[in-house]
């Protein structure tokens, strides 16, 4: 029996942390940007009469007096097309892949700007509120994907996020309404999510049950349970049990006064701030602390972790329950953070979207944030395009969020690798 040498484990990356971008992919991105540049020039530039103007409104309801941006659609498009083409050239001539994503993202932003100017021609687009909408959509997804990351990094698949959302939304609304204290509602949501996290952990870890099956069963159970209880308990007593107040936007002093960014980021619901704080916390905890290293070791190679004295099962228990708590808080945001009432099935499958965001984000908090924001932006964009009546048929607009997500994921994210021991039951003997 040789003793296990710890040092290489400390140095080795346990998951694909660095983005290994091949130069081929960089070229692909360059070509794509070039196509965008040409599209911008032809469709938005010279496809529009030169006199057409578009207005971007930049002030939210608490008017911060940022004057609207008025621009000539054609000439803005031409300028942006040139910028986009320059970035495309930059990508095509590169010899190293480092920073390519940044250049590519910048190019896409230029394209979107031209597109929005085109869509808003002859009208006004409230750009600022569109960004606010993006974050509103993204918030529950961030909670859900952080929950997934907590579980899966320790090697347990959490398909049950949707169920934990529902449980958190239900109990959050009920307790928040009955007690009249919204913070108690948040706590109740966390407890509800945590309980179903514990159930998942118990069945998956104590009995080694198939985690996918347990997760699906928990979702079905939560759906049925909340439907049943809504009808039997909440509805007969709607005014006391299912009419919680909601958290109103909380402006952060000074920061909320920053033009444009202020109202978007710093005059929001507590759930958004909570998501931001959790995001940083989970990231730091997972990647910068001893605790995080242990969690990832358990998720990648539990036997190796066990041999160096880490108690695999207790790490997993703790993480899965914590994950449940996070999802439960996210669930509470549906009721006491938004609508002020629980209704059956109101989470509408967003728990699964969150799971997808986690995977697109490569099991990393900020990656998941990117995926959630992208999806949220696509949803928000779709809504504004429908109101501006850009002439795209509604069914196509409705598809847009999913098409954009698929395009980005297949084009940019590429192959992802889950933690090696994800979903594999562990037993010591």
């Amino acid at each position, binding site marked *: 029996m040789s003793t296990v040498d710890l040092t290489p484990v400390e140095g080795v990356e346990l998951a694909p942390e660095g983005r290994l971008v091949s130069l081929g992919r960089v070229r692909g991105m360059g070509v794509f940007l070039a196509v965008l540049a040409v599209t911008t020039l032809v469709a938005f530039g010279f496809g529009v009469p030169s006199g057409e103007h578009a207005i971007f409104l930049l002030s939210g309801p608490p008017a911060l007096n940022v004057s609207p941006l008025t621009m000539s659609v054609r000439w803005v498009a031409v300028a942006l097309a040139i910028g986009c083409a320059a970035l495309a050239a930059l990508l095509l001539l590169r010899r190293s892949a480092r920073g390519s994503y940044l250049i590519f993202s910048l190019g896409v932003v230029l394209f979107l700007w031209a597109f929005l100017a085109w869509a808003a021609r002859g009208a006004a687009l409230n750009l600022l509120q569109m960004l606010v909408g993006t974050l509103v959509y993204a918030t529950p997804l961030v909670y859900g994907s952080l929950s997934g990351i907590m579980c899966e990094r320790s090697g347990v698949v959490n398909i049950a996020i949707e169920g934990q959302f529902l449980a958190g939304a239900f109990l959050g609304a009920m307790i928040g309404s009955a007690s009249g204290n919204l913070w108690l509602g948040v706590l109740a949501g966390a407890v509800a999510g945590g309980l179903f996290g514990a159930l998942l952990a118990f069945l998956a870890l104590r009995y080694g049950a*198939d985690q996918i099956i347990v997760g699906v069963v928990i979702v079905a159970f939560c*759906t049925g349970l909340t439907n049943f209880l809504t009808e*039997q308990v909440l509805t007969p007593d709607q005014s006391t049990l299912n009419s919680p107040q909601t958290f109103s936007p909380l402006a952060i002093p000074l920061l909320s006064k920053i033009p444009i960014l202020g109202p978007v980021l710093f005059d929001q619901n507590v759930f958004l701030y909570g998501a931001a704080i959790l995001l940083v916390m989970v990231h730091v905890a997972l990647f910068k602390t001893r605790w995080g290293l242990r969690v990832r070791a358990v998720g990648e190679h539990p036997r190796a972790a066990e041999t160096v004295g880490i108690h695999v099962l207790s790490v997993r228990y703790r993480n899965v329950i914590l994950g449940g708590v996070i999802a439960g808080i996210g669930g509470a945001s549906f009721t006491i953070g938004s609508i002020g*009432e629980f*209704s059956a099935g109101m989470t509408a499958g967003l728990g699964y979207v969150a799971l997808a965001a986690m995977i697109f984000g490569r099991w990393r908090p900020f990656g998941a944030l990117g995926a959630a924001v992208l999806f949220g932006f696509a949803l928000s964009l779709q*809504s504004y395009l429908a109101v501006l009546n850009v002439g*795209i048929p509604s069914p196509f607009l409705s598809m847009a969020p999913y098409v954009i997500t698929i395009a980005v994921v297949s084009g940019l994210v590429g192959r992802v690798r889950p933690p090696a021991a994800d979903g594999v039951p562990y037993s010591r003997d």
Partner: protein
Amino acid sequence: MSTSDHGAHRKRSRAGLTTRVAAASAVVVAATAAVGFGAGSSFASAKATAHHRATASARSGRAKSHFLACEVTDTGGINDRSFNASAYQGLKVAAKAIPGLSYKYLQSNSTSEYAPNINTFIGEKCGIIITVGFDMAQATQTAAKAHPSQKFAIVDYSYSPAMKNVLGLVYHTNQDAFLGGYLAAAMSKSGKVGTFGGQDIPPVTIYMDGWVAGVRYYDKVNHAHVVALGWTPAKKRNFASGSFAGNGLFTNDFTNQALGKTDAQTLMAEGADVIFPVAGAVGLGAAAAVKQAGAGHYMEWVDTDGCVSAPQYCSLFITSVTKGIVASVSTAVEAAARGTFHGGNYNGTLANNGVSLSPFHTFAHKIPAKVKAALKTLKAKIIANKVSLDPNSYPAS
């Protein structure tokens, strides 16, 4: 050490497979048991509830003649404050009128549950099955053809040719939505009003279409420039034969209230101050958004009187653009119970009170008398067919 350890690991995991499968099945069995006991999976829970209802009404001792009326809800659920709830209300009304009539429902949590739910009820020998919603048209037709002696009524759909054992209940809601649009335009201070729908289907777009027509009519008659956002009727369409094609804002969902909230926020961000959601329970999200937006933002509710179905938001509702689901469903159920049921189609209109604007409640004193008088005249004109309900008949502002 590591090689031998890996080998052992592999062997153990193979041996463990059977245990795992056994454990997994145990979990499923346990969960199913829990479902039977308490609530559980969506499908079974509805069944449990339904049974509860049935025994409850049987226990009430009114069971002289046994007649069972059954409702299959759409995905919005029984408590949607909208058409599912109204249809259920219709069953309750019928149960009061007819001794011995009991009723129950099954909730469809997804579109894939329509057919199984209908079949469950056929198996339970329901006297009449009410299917709620346009989306259930196909499932209802299939079941009705397979069981010609089973009576059905479907809300929001009419079959052509009509079927002998199905009563299609359709409502010409563009008539009262026209009045609603006129009123919204009259009440708007910002000069913009907005609507969105739950799904791009005729029973939804007929509301949006009539509403936009009402706004445009207001502009034409009063030389105003109120803009309706969220719905643009198609230029080329066959309005006379019932096409309500166009482009608009849709949540594509009847359960996700968060989408309703953000869609309402989109409309308000683009300047609208009166919002008309045509999305059942998802409209509650819009109400939350309008409430949050504060003073000067109002809305109109849809399908049912909002001050009755969602009283917490009553102060926001100028009016509700309703359709008489309760009355028509209860009439159909009572006819079936009395043996006078005939298949075919029912058309709700302003003339037969099948569609109507609800009372103004908190807005009774805020709506100018002039506007109220104009609405009255307009209603009479619509009944007399003297006003075009096609938005394309009027210039868009």
